[in-house]
């Protein structure tokens, strides 16, 4: 089988994790390329507003405090060895970003300044106004341009390819602009394709966040872990669900109910609005459900911060609230509500991004790596702290890139005797050739999204989730009948949407199976039929393996605990 291109390391996705991984692999001397379905600076890392955490010892902070708060935030489901790595290496990576050119906000001494974020007692969030993700994303792309790392822009990956030994040996993708399929050969593939927010409707996530990478890896044999852990962000706009940064509360904004009360006093007397996101989102839901909301929302009040401060430190959301909700944050409170935001789970990896276990405790795909939201290391366990996601992308993107490059050095160019691009090309041709007016992908996606948002959200219970499971099975059965009107090959976004929907249905199923399996309440997974955390039974990860025709095969892994035994979680 011939390939159009061959690299040591291929990175799928060009957000922060993907570009950081590519740069790290490049620094190790590997030949690297990136494939991405959108131009790098269109990636969803852009949307991270508030900042990036690091406990810097030279400013009197301790990495252990950051690590402990992350462990506590995860409701003790995060793997502590991984969290220790995250907290210990954070400072170095932030300084590296600064050296690359990121213009972080500074303090009076001309050094990097910090702000407070949720679930943490100390201000350790470094930031660029309220567009931190965008600022870092553009700088990493500058570095990619300088390093002249090839980027295959607007290429859509349809599957991973394995060699005769079962190792990941490349991928099949098509160029959106031409519709041409190609096989890319690689000794190592790094999946850094982001989250799956569009499985839900509404979601804070961009329209491109369709879980492609998770589904592609899952279908290739890599397990998905802790998929039931879906974060609802406490402050999103009604309607389309756009994100309002946690920095609004970190900088001093209040949450008020319809009576004007700071209701978080009832739920988290110490941390108030800055309790963990799962805690705040549940509190808001209770307020709204018990009739103390306003048209399905509670209020975010920033008026006391003053116009100048808001424009300086929260300028983007000031503009966003004006444009999308017609509210001037300096003059009036903003109606907000919890909205689907982040997938804590993902492709199971070790602390170097490997999606397989050299020791063999769990099965995976040798040669496949993952980093960022698409991966589950696991750092966030049951609930991610704000500003830990950007940190994860740079620390674990770098580690995955380095490890993948070193891994690739040990291998010859992969050899395959049989695999071809034909199955994927045929699937696409079948979709294009399907005549008549069948169901539209968008209709199925909406049905999936509203189902998930109704039954697998902040509060969950068996019956609702079983309903959702049946609905997803039904949608999976209808997917092969969908039709698209555009029959062309050039820039066929209808085709892309159809394929994305197929990936999202796999992700939705995994989320529900994980959620039905975990019979306790932990972090973002709150079950009204199992109200308590049950460490005896459920202090463990849930692994899901894809099976060709039935539900996923369920397996478990113990949580790795180093120094923090589970305690009750009070904010």
């Amino acid at each position, binding site marked *: 089988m011939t390939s159009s291109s061959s690299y040591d390391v291929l990175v799928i996705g060009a957000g922060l994790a993907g570009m950081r991984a590519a740069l790290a692999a490049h620094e190790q001397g590997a030949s690297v390329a990136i494939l991405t379905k959108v131009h790098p600076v269109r990636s969803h890392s*852009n949307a991270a507003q508030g900042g990036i955490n690091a406990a810097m010892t030279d400013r009197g902070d301790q990495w252990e405090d950051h690590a402990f708060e992350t462990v506590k935030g995860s409701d003790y489901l995060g793997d502590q060895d991984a969290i220790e790595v995250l907290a210990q290496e954070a400072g170095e990576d932030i300084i590296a970003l600064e050296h690359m050119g990121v213009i972080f906000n500074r303090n009076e001494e*001309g050094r990097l300044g910090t702000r407070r974020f949720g679930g943490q007692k100390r201000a350790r969030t470094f930031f*660029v106004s309220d567009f931190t993700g965008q600022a870092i994303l553009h700088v990493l792309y500058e570095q990619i341009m300088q390093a002249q790392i090839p980027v295959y822009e607007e290429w859509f990956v349809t599957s991973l390819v394995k060699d005769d030994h079962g190792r990941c040996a490349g991928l099949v993708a098509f160029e959106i602009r031409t519709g041409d399929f190609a096989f890319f050969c690689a000794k190592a593939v790094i999946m850094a394709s982001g989250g799956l927010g569009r499985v839900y409707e509404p979601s804070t996530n961009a329209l491109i966040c369709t879980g492609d990478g998770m589904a592609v890896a899952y279908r290739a044999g890599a397990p998905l872990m802790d998929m039931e852990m879906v974060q609802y962000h406490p402050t999103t706009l009604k309607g389309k669900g756009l994100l309002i940064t946690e920095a609004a509360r970190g900088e001093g904004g209040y949450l008020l109910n319809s009576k004007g009360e700071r209701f978080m006093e009832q739920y988290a007397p110490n941390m108030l609005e800055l309790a963990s996101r799962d805690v705040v989102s549940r509190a808001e839901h209770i307020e709204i459900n018990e009739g103390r909301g306003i048209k399905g929302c509670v209020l975010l009040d920033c008026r006391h911060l003053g116009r100048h401060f808001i424009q300086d430190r929260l300028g983007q959301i000031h503009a966003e609230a004006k444009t999308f909700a017609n509210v001037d944050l300096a003059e009036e409170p903003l109606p907000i509500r919890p909205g689907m935001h982040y997938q804590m789970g993902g492709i199971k990896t070790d602390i170097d991004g490997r999606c397989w276990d050299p020791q063999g405790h769990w099965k995976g795909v040798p040669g496949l790596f993952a980093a960022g939201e698409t991966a589950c290391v696991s750092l966030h366990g049951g609930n991610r702290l704000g500003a830990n996601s950007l940190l994860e992308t740079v620390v674990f993107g770098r580690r995955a890139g380095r490890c993948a490059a070193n891994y690739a050095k040990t291998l010859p160019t992969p050899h395959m005797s049989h695999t071809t691009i034909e199955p994927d090309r045929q699937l696409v041709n079948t979709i294009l050739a399907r005549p008549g007016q069948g169901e539209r992908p968008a209709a199925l996606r909406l049905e999936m999204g509203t189902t998930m948002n109704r039954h697998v959200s902040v509060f969950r219970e068996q019956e609702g989730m079983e309903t959702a499971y049946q609905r997803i099975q039904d949608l999976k059965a209808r997917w092969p009948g969908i039709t698209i009107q555009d029959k*062309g090959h050039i820039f066929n*976004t209808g085709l892309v949407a159809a394929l994305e929907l197929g990936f999202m249905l796999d992700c939705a199923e995994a989320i529900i199976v994980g959620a039905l399996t975990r019979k306790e309440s932990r972090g973002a997974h709150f079950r009204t039929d199992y109200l308590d955390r049950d460490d005896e039974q459920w202090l463990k990860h849930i692994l899901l393996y894809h099976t060709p025709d039935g539900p996923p095969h369920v397996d478990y892994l113990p949580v790795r605990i180093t120094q923090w035994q589970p305690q009750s979680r009070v904010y």
Partner: protein
Amino acid sequence: MHTTLRIRRFNPEHDQPSSYYQEYALEIDPSDSVLDGLIKIRETVDDSLTLRCSCRGAICGSCGMRINGHAALACKTKMASMASEGETIQVEPMNNMPVIKDLVTDMAPFWSKIRQVHPWLQPEGPPPTTEYTASSEAMSHLNGVMACIMCGVCVSDCTVLEVDHRFVGPAALAKAYRFVADPRDTSSKIRLDTLNQPGGMWDCTRCMECIQVCPKSVAPMDRIMSLRAKGLAAKVSSTCGSRHAEVFTDIIKHKGILDEPMLAVRTFGLKNVGRLMGMLPLVWQSVVKGKVPLSGPLHRPIPGIQQIQRLYKRVRSKQ
């Protein structure tokens, strides 16, 4: 409310591809953006309608297009602000770049211009062990230009690029400014020397269009003007662009009003016969239209020129 989207379509796979307009009547909510309208069409009427879009919140820069004749982000443009009840909104692909299909343009030329300005930080020597120390003031003013999302809207509506594809363009120049003004970057002089060449910072005609259309308030033209000021301060070599600015200021200082023939002669230099000859058709047209400005000694300073000169002094003392 009701509105109609009149969309310019182009499908390269048609037998004889040519662009045409197609109209879609929509029932919309006053809060709906143009992007909402386009997505509604794509998802419920015609999935062959092709556009790029992703974040819906004006941060990813995917959905740049021309709406009622001016480039904008579709996600940030409310339909109700573009049309009253029953009116039509015209949607077209961005200008100054090739169209691939419908509203999707080829951004490759855009990015090649961005790469031309070597858009990465170039500090001197090994980095410090911790962060670079720099005052908050020296850095925070760069947030405005860092807010650029590379959507291409300014490039679409740049009136210079419309006639001269060699111009590096407002987005690339704003990006260049971001490095020239960064205290950590030590390549400012080289950058400015490069931008001093034809196609660089002097080719902007200050039409303000990029400032008008930029969805992120980056004000590219203001950055271009700052680059010019920095270039002159750094004593970039004398080129038509820099001389034009210097001679312009000098003439105003002495006469209070522009002496246009003198501006041309002094900018190009008397020895540059070719360029001066090239001006002849313009001169001839001016003569025909009766618009021959006085020049040289015949061109008297305006009354109150002392006031202008005092202004010059005050401005210089502030610098």
